[in-house]
């Protein structure tokens, strides 16, 4: 697996009160856009900090660009660009000064890229950072990352405060620049529709563990919502059934794979299948991460989504 851009091996990070990352096994293929998804507090930012050598793991290991972040941090950072979740930079500097400061660290910096992105993302260059809105701060941070011409972009909430036009522009910029040149993107975001547009791999983390890691298209090809009517339908099913919710006379099952087989089984039990439909990323994410209240009318009881990661 040495060709993977990022791999983690039982990566673990414990803080005094919480297990932020708990035996995580990630694989990020080169040239992919990997959407790293999870609820707040699920461990996304902690994982990213481990990958960048900002913190050290309690146990386990990670490899970024084939290197160990504990030992070869600088070598990794030379080829990796990062946009932090907190868009904090030096308040007194203008974007021009920030560019000048950042430029000095990198050999592959591109001034033409800077000029191009300033124009396309509409970045104000002369105002001090402290006067900039969140959206503009995000843009500046992105600019600093893109100008690096890195092999790997690690982006934590890169669309904070950005209006839809700029988000669209950003995705295009990524598609025609970084991705077209074979770069990899590791993207953590709550904006599932944007992730859906650009990602080809998805990893969903919950309470420090990976719930699901697969190609986005494969996920969409396999996940199905089965609506069935009938008596005595099961509230639980084989492992690939992610959730089961009862709504009146109907049961809605979200199935991670082999939907046809499960539907057939239900039919054997006398159920009528009224609908088998695909799901978008948001629906899949919610099905996997939402924990239902146990024993309330309208649901089939608590289900922790333990879907095996191979689809």
């Amino acid at each position: 697996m040495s060709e993977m851009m990022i791999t983690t091996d039982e990566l673990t990070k414990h803080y005094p009160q919480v297990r932020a990352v708990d035996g995580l096994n990630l694989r990020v293929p080169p040239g992919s856009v990997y959407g790293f998804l999870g609820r707040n507090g699920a461990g996304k930012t902690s994982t990213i900090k481990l990958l960048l050598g900002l913190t050290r793991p309690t146990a386990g290991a990670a490899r970024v660009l084939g290197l160990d972040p504990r030992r070869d941090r600088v070598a990794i950072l030379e080829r990796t660009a990062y946009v932090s979740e907190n868009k904090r930079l030096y308040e007194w500097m203008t974007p021009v000064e920030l560019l000048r400061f950042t430029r000095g660290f990198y050999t592959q910096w591109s001034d033409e890229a800077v000029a191009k992105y300033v124009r396309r993302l509409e970045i104000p260059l002369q105002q001090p950072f402290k006067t900039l809105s969140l959206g503009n701060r995000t843009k500046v941070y992105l600019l600093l990352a893109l100008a690096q011409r890195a092999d790997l972009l690690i982006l934590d909430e890169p669309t904070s405060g950005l209006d839809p036009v700029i988000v669209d522009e950003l995705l295009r910029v990524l598609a025609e620049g970084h991705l077209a040149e074979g770069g990899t993107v590791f993207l953590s975001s709550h904006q599932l529709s944007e992730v859906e547009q650009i990602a080809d791999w998805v990893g969903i983390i919950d309470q420090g563990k990976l719930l699901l890691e697969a190609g986005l298209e494969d996920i969409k090809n396999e996940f199905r919502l089965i609506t069935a009517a009938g008596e005595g339908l099961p509230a639980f099913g084989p492992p690939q059934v992610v959730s089961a919710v009862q709504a009146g006379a109907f049961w809605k099952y979200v199935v991670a794979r082999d939907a046809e087989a499960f539907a057939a089984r239900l039919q054997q039990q006398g159920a009528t299948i009224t609908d088998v439909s695909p799901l978008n990323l948001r629906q899949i994410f919610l099905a996997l991460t939402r924990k239902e209240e146990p024993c309330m009318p309208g649901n089939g009881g608590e289900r922790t989504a333990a879907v095996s990661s191979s689809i």
Partner: protein
Amino acid sequence: MLLHVNPSSGVPIYLQIEGQVKQAVAAGALKPADVLPSVRKLAADLGINPNTVARAYQNLERDRVISAVPGGGTYVADGVPGLLKTEKLRRLRPYARQMAVEGRQLRLAPEEIVKLVQEELAKLGESL
């Protein structure tokens, strides 16, 4: 030609692209030897992952809908030459099965299902 994709639908983007290209070819909007945008350009225009476009193009090429010339350019292919009838039927069978299953679940009679297919074929014929 303008391709449009909806990333938030349950249908994978590559399938949407494939579907639209096939539809355009079937309806005559795309004729043999028409040029398709490059993977890079299409990805950039739509703001989607080039790998996704690449996959769609690969599948379309495998299905002989388009062909890529080494050294540049992707073109709509010249019909579907050299495919045996049995092969063409084999390709179509999964769609037929899906129609049969869906039709049965909806409790439609076989004649109604067949009529539906004929109507769609007629529509395609009109726009040629």
